[in-house]
């Protein structure tokens, strides 16, 4: 059974959803406080949504210096799956583990509604078991959700079917070159069971669990 760390920053609020969803898919998901510095027992890590450190200064700016981030960086560099959801995505960008930055939505609205997202790149830990072109409906819940990438190097993994927030290339999820670090703005963990209104997010989390199972002990 694969072990996945779900990091809890002060201000995280989706860690239990992420843990619940990953456990439901057979992974051993453990909550890890942001001051932890050793993630060597884990096959992958999820940075959940929320408002880490109050999102002060910029979303993710302070969280990227949390003690756990050195271990997260090491995981990224050693090819293990690192997935940031919503605020976790913002943290990965601030940490330089993903290109670009997430700024306020084009229309300055906190967008809180289900959105359609098309998976276009299936060579990443979050999409490897998904058919290319699959459209999933996931809840979006963010204010700073607009990706801007002046370098133009962001590898778009999934795209909003409609332009909901001005995100460059309609990017809803991007990956690093190796495909083991993925940031996604809408929430697969909040759409992982029919009782939540949609189980569309499961295919993404199933892919993540499968990727962590491939990590040698």
């Amino acid at each position: 059974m694969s072990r996945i760390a779900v990091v809890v920053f002060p201000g995280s609020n989706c860690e239990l959803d992420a843990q619940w969803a990953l456990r439901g898919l057979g992974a051993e998901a453990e909550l890890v406080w942001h001051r932890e510095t050793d993630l060597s027992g884990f096959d992958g890590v999820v940075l959940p949504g929320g408002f880490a450190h109050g999102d002060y200064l910029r979303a993710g700016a302070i969280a990227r210096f949390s003690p756990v981030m050195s271990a997260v960086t090491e995981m990224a560099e050693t090819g293990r799956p690192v997935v940031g959801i919503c605020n976790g995505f913002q943290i990965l960008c601030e940490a330089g583990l993903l290109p670009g930055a997430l700024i306020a939505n084009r229309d300055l609205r906190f967008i809180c509604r289900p959105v359609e997202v098309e998976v276009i790149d299936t060579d990443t830990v979050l999409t490897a078991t998904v058919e290319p072109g699959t459209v999933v409906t996931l809840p979006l819940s963010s204010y700073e959700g607009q990706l801007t990438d002046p370098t133009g190097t962001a590898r778009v993994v999934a795209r909003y079917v409609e332009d909901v927030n001005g995100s460059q290339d309609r990017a809803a999820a991007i990956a690093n070159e190796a495909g083991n670090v993925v940031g996604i703005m809408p929430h697969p963990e909040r759409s992982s069971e029919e009782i939540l209104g949609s189980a569309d997010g499961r295919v993404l989390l199933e892919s993540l669990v499968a990727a962590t199972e491939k990590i040698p002990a």
Partner: protein
Amino acid sequence: MKVTVHIERRPEIADPEGTAISRSLVDLGYHVRSVRTGRTLHLEVDGEDVAAVEKLVDEMCQRLLTNPVIEDYRIEVEG
């Protein structure tokens, strides 16, 4: 030593807040072409040497205070 850091979006990066303020000013009848928002930080830093303090604050800007991907900054040290 008192230090002021002015932070603003790089010109090519969208500033939705500035755009909204600009529209509102135009609605009020002001002839405004554009508004760009920024942030000002006031720091009190230990040190005697202006150049050394400026260098230190520059390091702070690079590491934490700004996101070099999207922001520019300017440092003023009150000697």
